[in-house]
């Protein structure tokens, strides 16, 4: 249930993001989801990709500072209260979230969750019958 997310450190310079996407394109790696966290003069791009190991290798070859972070991907139904239900479970269990972002997947939304206690997140969500994406699901996309 743990999904490997790539995080890349980027300076605020024209063309750096373009460069990453070019490298991934040339290596036939699909980007399933991404989000950018920006600070004053740099940012961190977080990616979920079809082949994380290959992506890390090619990005490192191209001198990007990249590392792998483990995240959990929760499938949320497209209806009011979908996200609330999931987050309530986490807060009821006293679990804090470091960051999250969402992407659309077919008819539902998927929320990427990063917490320092990923295993707890998985356990409580599964106990409450919430649907999680498996690594194999992502890598097929």
């Amino acid at each position, binding site marked *: 249930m743990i999904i490997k*997310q790539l995080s890349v450190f980027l300076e605020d310079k024209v063309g750096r993001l373009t460069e990453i996407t070019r490298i991934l394109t040339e290596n036939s790696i699909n980007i399933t989801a991404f989000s950018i966290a920006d600070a004053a003069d740099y940012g961190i791009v977080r990616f979920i990709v079809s082949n994380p190991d290959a992506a890390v290798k090619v990005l490192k070859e191209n001198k990007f500072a990249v590392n792998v972070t483990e995240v959990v991907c929760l499938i949320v139904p497209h209806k009011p209260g979908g996200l609330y239900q999931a987050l309530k479970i986490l807060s009821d269990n006293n679990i804090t979230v*470091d960051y999250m972002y969402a992407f659309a997947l077919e008819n539902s939304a998927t929320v990427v969750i990063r917490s320092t206690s990923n295993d707890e997140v998985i356990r409580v969500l599964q106990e409450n019958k919430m649907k999680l994406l498996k690594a194999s699901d992502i890598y097929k996309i």
Partner: protein
Amino acid sequence: MILMIWNEFIETADREKLTKIQDERFAKMIERIYYNVPFYRKKLQEKGIGPQDITRIEQLNELPFTVKADLRDNYPFGLFTVPQSEVVRLHASSGTTGKPTVVGYSRNDIQIWSEVVARSLTMANISKSDIIQVAYGYGLFTGGLGVHYGAEKVGASVIPISGGNTKKQIQLMLDFGSTALACTPSYAAYLGESIQKEGIDKKQIRLKSGIFGAEPWTNELRQQVESLLGLKAYDIYGLSEIIGPGVSMECECQNGMHIFEDHFVPEIIDPDTLQVLPYGQVGELVFTTLTKEAMPLLRYRTRDLTRLHVDKCECGRTLVRMEKCLGRSDDMLIIRGVNVFPSQVEAVLLEMNEASPHYQLVVERENNLDSLEIKVEINEHYWSDEIKIIEGLRKQIQHSISSTLGLTAKITLVEPLTITRSEGKAKRVIDNRKKI
């Protein structure tokens, strides 16, 4: 463990014997410059000193100084004491302002140079059983050829690969089984990182000694290079005006660099009052060459700040030791009235595992106010994907820097390998104030 000594007669001589050698050579040196160089004759005459007055090295502090500007004013050959027909080699240092500094060598000067470098390499445990990769630049810069001749003198197998071409450096290092490496410390760090990046097993590298110099570096960088390359890193000091690398060299005790005093006499002066300071006090290093024929220098102000120690070293050598330079006073930046050495920044970064030691200082002046920005490469082996942790790191760097320098600097984190790695000397400082 006490290693071999190349020239035991000189390197372990007692003070009395050494002073006697210096006295004799010094008197001849003064005679040579007085009669052959109008520049020196005039300076000595102004002080009412003739060659017959000088018989002892202790009279040195009565004599005038020579500074870099004197070399430029007498460009190119005005300070030579021999005719061009006696000069067998010319080197020049890159002049950052205007004309380069030219130095000339007679055949005998080249032999002296080879001798002091041979002593230096022996200190670094290098002998005829070694294969030395000389990755200093060959050419007008004295690094490459200086180490080359000394290495041949000790009988090592020399790979004159010169600087740059990192892939080839690594290939030959592995294929030829280099046991010693001579280059700038920043290039050594770069080579070590490249080897690590290529995933080469460290056991394949046979390096045991590194001879690193030509730019100021810290003990923290030494530890890093030693661990990356699996060698013992020795500091070599020199400047082309005096001879090039081999003016002084660190022994296995790594407790300061022994100055080859039978050829180069050191003094430490207060750069403001120009008074000679006693052993142990920090000041500007000044050298007088005793034996150089083509271009002897009298009390040449190096601009390097350091101090001298005269107590006997555990290695058995009696030669005076100089500490690692705090920096050239040329490298010293004065920012909002505070003296800043790039080496202070390096030391702070190396103390923190999270930051890499690759950095650059950028100084600007806006509305008559100086500002300092320090660009630091993020360490790819240690960085978080969370902004709050990276910001925490940045604040920690900022805090350590401001408490060390006594000055607030803007810290900018940059991507790995984006600060220019010199294949020669590291570009540590960009001072944009000078252009205004």
